[in-house]
Every structure is written in C-alpha cells, then in structure tokens.
C-alpha cells in the first residue's frame, strides 16, 4: 500500500487510466457538451439561447415553481420527519417497532410506482375519495388530486424519510453525557433541546434538507401525472424535447443543473462550519425512555399505528388494484372482481414480459459495472497518502476525483439523460461515428452514471472503516499486495460493496426520469411499460408491474440489509 503511493507501478497506472477514461466519457464530456451547446447558435458563441429562454414567462415560472416546490418540500418533510425521529428514537411505547420498521418504506418505492399508487389511493377516483363519496352520499369526488397540495403531499410522503432517518441517526450519535451534563447544570428539557441537542443535530438536518431539496428539484413523475398546470423545470425539459426544441431543452437543462449544484455548494459550505468531532462522542448511547404518562403513551401508540397505516396504504392499494379486473372498478370504493389475469398477462405477453428482461439485464449490467469501477475509484481515493511526500496522487486530485464521481448523483436524472443524449446523439469527438443514442446500451450507460456514486460511497465507507494496520500487519507477515487485497481487504469490504451494488440495482430497476428521455423500442424498461399501461387505462396491469417491481426491490433490500448487519 505504502509502496504504491510513492512509486508509479503498472497496476496503479492502469487504475488511473480506467478511472480517467470513465470520467471523461461519462461525466466530463457529456456535461461539457451540454454546457457548450447551450452557449451556441448555428456554430457561434452567444448568450441568445438564454435570452430566449429567460424571456419566456413559462420558463421563468418553471424555475420559480421548481425552487418554491423544493423549499416547501424541505419545510414539510422537516415538520413531519424531525418530530417523528425524536418520538421514535427517544421513547419506547407499544407500536413503536411497527412504525420504525416501515419508516423508510417510501425511500425504496420507485417514484413512478409511488405516483401511480398515490393516484389509485388519493386520486379523485381513488379508493379514499370514493369511500368518502359513498359514506356521505356526495354527488362528486370530495377533492381532486391536482396542483400544489397534491405535489406537496406526495413529496412529503416520499421524502420525509430523509429527515426521519438522518435525524434518528444523529440522535443515536449524540453523546448522552452532554445532555446529562446540561441537565446537571440546571438546564430544563427545552433548553437542553435547543442549546445542546439541536446544535449537535445541525449536520444531520442540513444533510436531510439538501437531499430533500435536490430530490424535489429532480422530481418528474409526480409533476407529470398530477401536477396539473404547475410547470416545473424537469417537465419543461421533457416537453421541449418532445416538441423537438432541443436547444431550449439543453438551455433549461443547464439552468436546472446550475440550481441543483448551487444548492449542493451552499449546503455543504454551511455543513462544513458545523462539523462536530466524532472522536469526542464516546459515551454510552442514550437508552430510550418509556413514556410514563398513560394518555401520552396512548397518543404515541396511536401516532405510530396511524403513520404505519399511512405508509402502507399506497402499497396496499397498488396490490389491490393489481388484482382488480379493469372493467370491474367503476364507481365502487373497492374493485368488485379480483383476478390474477393482470399478472398472467404481463408475464406471458411477449411484448410485456420483454420489459422485465430489459430492465433486469440493463440494471444488472449497470450495477456490476459500477461495482468493478468503484473498486478502481476507491482504491485511488482511500489509498492512504504517505504523510511525508506530496506524491503524484495527492489530496488535490483526490478531491477532484471525488467531486467528479459525485456530479452524476448531484445532477437530476433529467440532466444526466439530456447530457448523454446531447453528447452521443450524433457522431462525436470521443466515439467517432458510433452513435450511442438509439442503441440498447444507452440506458445501461445512463443507469451506470446515475447510480455508480452510490456504490462508490458504500465501498468507500467500508474501506475507510478498515483499520490500515490490518494491511500493514499482513504486509509484515509477508503477504504481497495482491494477497493482501484478496485475503484481508476483500473479505472485509465485500458485504458493504455488494449492499451498495444491490441498492444501485433496485433503483435502476424502477428508473423512469432519465429512461423516458432516451429509451428506444429495443430497451423499453418496466417504468415505461407502467406509464403506457396507465395511459391506456390498463390500471390493473400498471399495478401488477408496480407490485412485481416492489417485490424484487423488497427481496434485494432484505439481502442488502442482511449483508450490512453481517458486516458490522
């Protein structure tokens, strides 16, 4: 390990070569292509694309709406997620575990499937609306699932786990003795919360806010299906491409990318000022307290059960609809006739079953490629630099490498897809006359780009936990570099790496935002099939696709969870 930092061995050169090529083809060139195209008109450098775009009311409105929607999503998710985290992380009461087990469910729901489930559940002809209509004998549906309220409701449902999970993790990390010290000094509970706990939680809260903001900026399925006439940037880019206005699409893409990346920079700058030294947190973790007051305990239990039902309802709805015969569900609250025909159809009709093969193979290709590539990147990033010499691969280049790897994750899926389409939609500098767009490989490539940062992150976390003394010990016992890797490093990091790979795999499986921009008939993925079944009012088939997708995701997540636990 030490040797490689000070000397340029052949294997080290190969790693650098592979890494730079992937970053050049996947990150640098496509993004540069989009960027430069947005400043060009008929081969000349100009700002007129931006002048054109920003002079349109629609574009300004879309920018404004995207930002406001994202800020409001952050606010609502925090209002739901943070109190829940405090309740479930600090106290015990009957029903706590049910909710704790389900809390992160919306995170693994593919956005499109979640959107579809929401329509079946809360739409004006969904189960809830019809139930109320029947109960109170109303003439019309009591509400419509359209516009701001619908979007915010859906965003809060799908993104509150960022706040819940990160705040919970933050609370578990907080040194219990700090709060105890504060109380021994006479601070009341509220003061402890305000002066001791919240400042410690700031990094978690900022991270959650950032994730929510960026996810919301990238949100596409919900605005598409029930945004009504609210225009957001992702949707504008999609419609611009649909009507063939590629210049407008590219310009809007750059605007969306700039907003997202600025948010990342702003949030991270603030986060940097509030980092707490983890080494100081050595105390025993705070045990959860039972709630003594009976009324409060009953209330807490009620909350746990209520939220659990809310979390499960969309998925339950999806399952019900997937077994419904399409023509049997007209005005009833619940479908009247149940059948397995929907599942039989999507598995037997060649055109339908093909999409499973497409999605599974493309996601697998992307995930395995991401796993292999992440070993290259992480070896370069984690490699302990010899403290003494500013070597060839010093901290500056490591930071640059980490940043480049992160970019596709930080950019909305729409941006990644448009960038790749722009760069490789015609004969290009890097690929010559080969045009990637229109081939099967475009989607595996886009999936790889979008989700490889997850695998890199997972592997990097595992590698960083690895005590460098283990490799040194292996070295002192006579093991060469390859043997050290195979016998010491790999057995200790593979569970984390595979867990990350599975995560990337399942997310790619349900990918819609980028797929819808660049798919072709020969690589039609599941998400596109769901959208088209929905358009044809084959609700049962759309539900069945969603259920199968959720099934695969559930199995993968259980395996990943087992691996994670095994690792620790």
């Amino acid at each position, binding site marked *: 390990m*030490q*040797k490689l930092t*000070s000397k340029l061995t052949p294997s080290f050169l190969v790693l650098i070569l592979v890494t730079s090529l992937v970053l050049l083809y996947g990150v640098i060139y496509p993004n540069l292509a989009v960027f430069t195209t947005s400043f060009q008109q008929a081969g000349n450098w100009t700002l007129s694309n931006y002048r054109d775009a920003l002079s349109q009311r629609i574009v300004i409105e879309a920018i404004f709406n995207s930002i406001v929607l994202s800020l409001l999503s952050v606010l609502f998710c925090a209002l739901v997620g943070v109190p829940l985290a405090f309740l479930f992380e600090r106290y015990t009461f009957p029903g706590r575990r049910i909710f704790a087990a389900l809390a992160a469910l919306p995170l693994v729901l593919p956005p499109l499937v979640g959107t579809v489930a929401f329509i079946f559940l809360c739409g004006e002809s969904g189960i809830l609306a019809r139930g109320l209509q029947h109960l109170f004998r109303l003439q019309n549906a009591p509400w419509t699932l359209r516009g701001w309220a619908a979007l915010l409701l859906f965003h809060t449902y799908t993104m509150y786990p960022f706040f819940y999970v990160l705040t919970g993790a933050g609370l578990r990390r907080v040194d219990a003795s700090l709060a105890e010290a504060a109380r021994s000094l006479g601070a009341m509970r509220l003061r402890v919360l305000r002066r001791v706990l919240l400042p410690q939680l700031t990094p978690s809260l900022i991270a959650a806010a950032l994730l929510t903001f960026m996810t919301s900026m990238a949100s596409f399925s919900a605005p598409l299906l029930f945004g009504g006439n609210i225009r957001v940037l992702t949707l504008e880019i999609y419609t611009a491409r649909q009507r063939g206005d590629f210049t407008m699409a590219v310009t809007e893409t750059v605007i969306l990318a700039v907003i997202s990346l600025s948010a990342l920079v702003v949030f991270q700058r603030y986060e940097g000022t509030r980092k707490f030294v983890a080494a100081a947190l050595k105390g025993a973790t705070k045990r959860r307290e039972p709630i003594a007051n009976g009324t409060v305990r009953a209330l807490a239990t009620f909350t746990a059960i209520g939220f659990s039902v809310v979390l499960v309802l969309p998925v339950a709805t999806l399952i019900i609809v997937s077994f419904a015969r399409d023509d049997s569900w007209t005005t009833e609250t619940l479908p009247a006739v149940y059948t397995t025909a929907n599942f039989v159809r999507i598995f037997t009709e060649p055109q339908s079953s093909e999409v499973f093969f497409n999605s599974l193979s493309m996601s697998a290709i992307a995930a395995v490629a991401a796993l292999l590539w992440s070993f290259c990147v992480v070896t370069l990033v984690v490699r302990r630099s*010899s*403290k*003494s*010499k500013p070597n060839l691969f010093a901290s500056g280049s490591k930071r640059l490498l980490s940043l480049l790897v992160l970019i596709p994750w930080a950019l909305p899926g729409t941006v990644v897809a448009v960038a790749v389409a722009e760069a490789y939609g015609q004969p290009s500098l890097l690929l010559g006359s080969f045009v990637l767009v229109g081939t099967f490989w475009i989607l595996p490539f886009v999936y790889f780009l979008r989700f490889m940062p997850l695998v890199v992150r997972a592997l990097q976390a595992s590698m960083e936990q690895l*005590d460098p*003394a*283990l490799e*040194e*010990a*292996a*070295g*002192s*016992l*006579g*093991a*060469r570099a390859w*043997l050290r890797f195979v*016998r*010491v490093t790999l*057995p*200790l990091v593979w569970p984390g790496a595979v867990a990350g790979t599975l995560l990337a795999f399942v997310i790619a499986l349900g990918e819609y935002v980028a797929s819808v921009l660049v798919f072709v008939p020969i690589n039609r993925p599941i998400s596109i099939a769901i959208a088209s079944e929905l358009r044809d009012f084959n609700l049962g088939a759309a539900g069945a696709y969603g259920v199968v997708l959720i099934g695969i995701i559930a199995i993968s997540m259980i395996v990943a969870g087992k691996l994670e636990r095994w690792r620790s």
Partner: protein
Amino acid sequence: MPLLTLNHISKLFGSTRAVNDVSLDVNQGEFFGLLGPSGCGKTTTLRMIAGLEHPDSGSIEFDGQNITSLPPERRGFGMVFQNYALFPHLNVFENVAFGLRARHKPKTELNERVASALELVQLPGYAQRRIDELSGGQQQRVAIARAIAIEPALLLFDEPLSNLDVSLREETRGELRELVTRLGLTAVYVTHDQEEAFALCDQISVMVGGKLVQSGKPRELYEEPADISVARFLGRNNLIRTMRLSSSKTSDGEFKTLDGGHTLTCEVRHDDLAPLNKPVFLSIRPEQVLLGSPTSPTNNTFTGIVREIVYAGATSTVRLDANGLLLEALVLQPNGLKVGTECNVTLPREHLRLLRNEQ
C-alpha cells in the same frame, strides 16, 4: 557487528521533523527499547524499521544488507501492533497461520507451527475461536503468536501492552520477556512507559522531539541522564537552576543555586565543563536527598522547612522549601518530620549530576 543499524535516518511529515537524524545499533539477541513521550517519533522509527514508512534520508541495514527500500513483506520481521490488528474475519488459527500461508508452507508444517506458537503464548485450544470472542489479553497473545509463528528475524513491538489493565500488563510483560529470551529472538520495543522499558529492555534509546537524546542500559539512563529532557522524562527528579562559580578545570565544580543561594559542589567531567556565564541545571533523584536534624550548614547541606508530607504506603514524599529552593525527598519513614518544622537537607555530591543544557 550489530544486527540492525539505523544510519542517520530522518522523516518529515509536512514540515515537522518526526524523526531527526536518528542512528542506533541493535545487537543480536538484544531486547532493545525505544522510549519517549508521545509524539517523539519512536513509533515512526519503528515503522521505518518494519518498512511501513520510508525514511526521507539515511539508511537501514540488517545483517549487513541495506534494506532501506525493501518492502515490508520481504523483510521477514514480525510486528505486534498497538491495537493488535488481528484480522476480524479470520479465526485464531487462520490469523496465526496467515504469514505461513503467505510463505506457502506445507500443511503439516503449518499446523505444527501454529500449534506451537499458540502453545508458546499459552493459548492452546483456542485455535478455532473467533477474534471477537477473546478478551483483550488473549487478543494480545494471538497477536504475539502471529508475529512469532513466521520465526521472524526481528520482532517489533509497538506499545503492545498499552491496552491492557495494570496487573495484566505486568504479568504479560514478564511472559513476553521470557518468551523472547527463550526463542533467542532480537526485539525492538516501543513504549512511553519508563517502568516498562526498564523492566524489559537490555538497552534503551530515549527519543525526545524526533531526536535520539541518549542510549544506554536502564541503570545508566536513570543515574546519568545526559540532559534535562531525559532527566525530566525518566522518573522524578529535582532540577536545580545554578550558576557555576569556579572556573578551575578540576573535577570539582562549585555552583550557586539561583533559588535560595545555596552553594553546592559536584563532580564535573572534563567534556561537559559548564560555561560560567550561563545558568545550568543540577539534578538529584528524590531518593538521594538526605534529611536530618539541624546542624550547622556546610557545603551541600542546608536547612529547609517541611511544607508537605505525602504518604504513599512504603515510602513518603517530603516537599521542602529551603529559602526559596523547592525540593522533593523520598524517605521510607518520615520519622520526626512535621509540616512546618525545620530540618537539615543534604544533597550528596556523588549523586548530583550536571546536565547538558537543552539546545
């Protein structure tokens, strides 16, 4: 010829000189200690011997060969890490067998050597245990077994006992020394614990601030500290600021203490003749300070007032104030001494040491 030689090795971390021009020799069969306060560069020196760090300048020779740029896996030195660095995914047997497998040892030999290594550290029957099932002391033994199983040409220890509690540490210390002697191994042992180094090592080098300040046998270091840093670091010591009075080149030097103005004489060796115009330090161990009933003051004897008596079981520490000069004396029984009373203090000239000034 020494087995291991470090020739003027230096190591920079950024702009700090972690190890500054260190040279030392370790002889065959020696238990060699590198002693110093934390951050003095002793671990870095050990890691350079192991090949885990590269010296920026200087060379390392082993058995007459220059091994400065030999990678660690080809040095054949066993190393026991401070946190043991046991492989958590391998059981005890596989941990101990690791180095033997790297050497492609045949199965029977491998089994035998693992068994005998485990026997040597008194852990027979633990071969199939998982690492996290072992206590700290047992993990420590496995780490030692793993290092000796490869029959190392040199055994390196990086503060191996610092994670054990006091009684276990003393017990393990004795066993470790016995084991190394029995196997006829040469060891380099890094520690910040003076008592541990004294108990274990034949030869000790004291490092302070990246530099090697003194080498010698434990007793020499204790009784003849070369400079203030060593005198301060090794055990308790009275450091007395003085000016030299006589300039004669005789072996007797005459000094006046800056606090209290007492006159002291002590032996001055030719080579460390103290300058006349600069304050110098004399040192004396508390156990060498003699206390008695008041008589008339002569050279090296003066009166002091007892300020404090700290009882510590077998011994007591008496803190004295002799007209502004604060001293500590270690006595077995503080007979007849009372706080606030006067007594006679004698600093025997043969136990006073003239220290080199810190640079």
